[in-house]
């Protein structure tokens, strides 16, 4: 499919805590990236970040909510960038409260690496004040 300059692929997805629903949302984002010919490395980075953001939302944000409570995933992809917003319905959290998993004393901890990976792979990642909505931006490298 020919992609025209300035073209966008946008969608708002409602995702429930079910592996196939999460995979469908990831596939939809990957489909948008494929449309703009993002490289394999870029797709890997973005898909992993999305997966970690949604997993964190269900595991932590929705810990005390009914299991059917959905998470919202909105994205806006173009040839230059993709912006993804993942919003859960939980009470929010303080991202600065997560211990740095790369410190020697935390290396053997079983969890707490999702946000680290998101920040490493995305160009920008910031939570809203409440801490239940993560906005991530990936700016495509010149050679990808």
């Amino acid at each position, binding site marked *: 499919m020919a992609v025209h300059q300035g073209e966008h692929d946008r969608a708002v997805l409602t995702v429930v805590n079910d592996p196939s629903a999460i*995979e469908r949302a990831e596939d939809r984002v990957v489909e948008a990236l494929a449309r703009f010919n993002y490289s394999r490395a870029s797709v890997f980075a973005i898909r992993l970040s999305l997966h970690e953001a949604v997993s964190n939302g269900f595991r932590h944000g929705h810990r005390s909510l009914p299991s059917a409570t959905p998470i919202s995933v909105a994205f806006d992809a173009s040839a230059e960038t993709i912006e993804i917003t993942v919003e859960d319905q939980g009470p929010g959290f303080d991202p600065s409260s997560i211990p740095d998993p790369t410190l020697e004393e935390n290396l*053997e901890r079983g969890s707490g*690496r999702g946000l680290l990976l998101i920040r490493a792979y995305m160009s920008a990642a910031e939570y809203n004040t409440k801490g239940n909505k993560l906005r991530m931006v990936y700016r495509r490298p010149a050679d990808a």
Partner: protein
Amino acid sequence: MPASESRIRVKRTEGLIQVEFIDRNILDEGNIRSISDEIATLIESEPKPRMIISFANVEHLSSAALGALITLNNRIRARTGQLRLSNINPQIFEVFSITRLNTILQIHPTNEDAAKSFV
């Protein structure tokens, strides 16, 4: 779990347990739990397990999978065994590198290299 639902391939040779993932994506927490349980059973079956986990087929993995690997490594060490990881593609290796888990998990290019590294 019945063998037909297994998500890993296992080969045992000369006291060495070689594990390979069947799935290309090691992302879903439920699947990761199933895989961990299967591997934990293998660990418990040896007094001093020497295990190689190959990532030859793996294209994506999540932080939940990393957490599971740390738990499995600790289980093996508790039995004075040794764990090696192998066949990790550059993208997946970067995940280990970002999280610095390459400093506590031994990673080798191939199963053969991993097998030679056991002490």
